[in-house]
């Protein structure tokens, strides 16, 4: 049995409101089906507004679709009993796209990370602190950061606090919505390494939503492309992605930026005159 099965999910916003007899509803997800196996990562890319974050919310049980089912370990998450729901909530964690609104501004980093632990695990205070410091170090932060509040962190640091919080409970599936997108490459590879390790050692699974194709390749076993609410293609290898003939995929590939300034194509010559380039020294 797959860890997660999404079956023919469709969702619209404002579906019930009719305006002057017209149906104003906006179909955001259209007949989506796929599965995620234990210990694997499904990467999800797609145009902005395609419905990726919405799909993530459907899987997390916080945005009920009008049609279809989401099965987690075989349980229909929108129709499970209380006890099952509570168990699912622990096994399903998320790191949202917007790291600031995901945390309580009045909690320290220590509280933010320990909150899920307190709910589920009975650890002594020293054990718990040790565990939190370990987690902070794994995401490139340190003991010094325990007592800081969200506004005292940089964007990327807060994102890493959220990642530490999500992995704290060793859940079964984590939805990562653009979670490493704003991290510099050195920090990003540290996080991807951590995620890959948890995947191999503990069989963690991920839904990895990103616009960064390179990051997606580094962690995903399967890569899906969502466009206008439809899952248009699924690939098992990089080569399949690169040989796809789908126009949307082609457009994505054609938008890959140069890897060295020598190959740049985007910038034009200035129209306002400035020929006299002074010696370049900052």
């Amino acid at each position: 049995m797959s860890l997660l099965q999404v079956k023919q999910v469709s969702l619209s916003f404002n579906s019930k409101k009719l305006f002057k007899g017209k149906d104003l509803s906006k179909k955001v997800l259209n007949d989506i089906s796929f599965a995620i196996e234990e210990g694997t990562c499904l990467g999800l890319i797609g145009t902005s507004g395609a419905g990726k974050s919405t799909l993530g919310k459907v899987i997390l049980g916080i945005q009920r679709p009008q049609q279809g089912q989401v099965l987690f370990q075989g349980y229909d998450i929108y129709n499970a009993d209380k006890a099952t729901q509570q168990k699912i909530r622990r096994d399903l964690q998320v790191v949202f796209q917007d790291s600031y609104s995901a945390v309580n501004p009045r909690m320290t980093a220590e509280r933010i990370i320990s909150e899920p632990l307190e709910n589920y695990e009975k650890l002594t205070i020293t054990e718990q602190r040790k565990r939190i410091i370990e987690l902070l170090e794994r995401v490139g932060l340190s003991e010094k950061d325990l007592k800081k509040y969200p506004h005292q962190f940089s964007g990327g640091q807060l994102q890493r606090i959220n990642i530490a919080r999500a992995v704290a409970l060793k859940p079964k599936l984590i939805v990562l919505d653009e979670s490493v997108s704003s991290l510099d490459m050195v920090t990003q590879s540290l996080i991807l390494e951590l995620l890959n390790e948890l995947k191999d050692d503990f069989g963690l699974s991920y839904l990895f939503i990103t616009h960064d194709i390179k990051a997606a390749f580094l962690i995903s076993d399967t890569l899906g492309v969502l466009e206008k609410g439809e899952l248009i293609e699924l690939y098992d290898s990089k080569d399949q992605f690169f040989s796809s003939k789908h126009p949307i995929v082609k457009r994505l590939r054609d938008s890959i930026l140069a890897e060295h300034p020598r190959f740049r194509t985007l910038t034009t010559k200035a129209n306002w005159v400035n020929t006299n380039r002074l010696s370049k020294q900052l």
Partner: protein
Amino acid sequence: MKSNEQNILNVRDLHVQVRTPEGLSTLVQNINFEMEKGKILGLVGESGSGKTITSMSILQLLDKKRMNIEGSITLHGRELNGLENKEMRKIRGKDIAFIMQNPMNAFTPVFTIGHQFVETIRTHSSLNKKQAKELAIDTMQSVNLPNPDKLLKSYPFQLSGGMLQRVMIAMAACLNPSVIIADEPTTALDLHNQLLVLRLLDKVRSRYGTSILLISHDLGVISEMADDVIVMQYGRIVESANVFDLFDHPEHEYTKKLLRTRPTLYSQKQPYTYML
């Protein structure tokens, strides 16, 4: 110090400290750079190295009760550091536009996108409501936002992350400011929309001579856009160079590591020629 009339913005000996219960703690120090007319200055660096603090100092958006900002920041020769908030408000958005790292924080949740966009334009220009709306729609179209009319009537939570980011970019670009500070402007965008946004920024630069401070962790964005690059680590500038020199002859250890760890799509096995 180099005097150069092409320099729009000068940052000299910027030093920012924050008051903590344990005393003053330094966030950035010895920051020196200048932004030339029509040039793009890339800013890269480790997460937490002080990129956002540096840009917030230029905009004078740091909490002055908690932070000490020393040094000089001049725009067209005018000192900004210590300027009254009332004066600074006239400059922000008009002379120095900014694109925040976190699009959600840039909007007030209770007002529509249109209200916020049109108000921003009207505060800084003599356009009437109808003209402001026209301008908003035009710029939104240039960043590929679908149905701008409809979007203007939406509330922030009804837009996806990438849509909000593009609205913010449209807002920043539409008044042709002399400086744009763009803090990770394309992190929430798919590749195609990223390209369109970068094109818009380049258009503003080449047409109006806008100087852009482009903070990005994405070396692809830096490769395509930057003329010069500064690299930050632990609150300091550790390297600054012309973009070609930086990629070909990185000097600082962190820069070398950054270039080494960047994932590449080119593989020995399969060179993807369409990229060249």
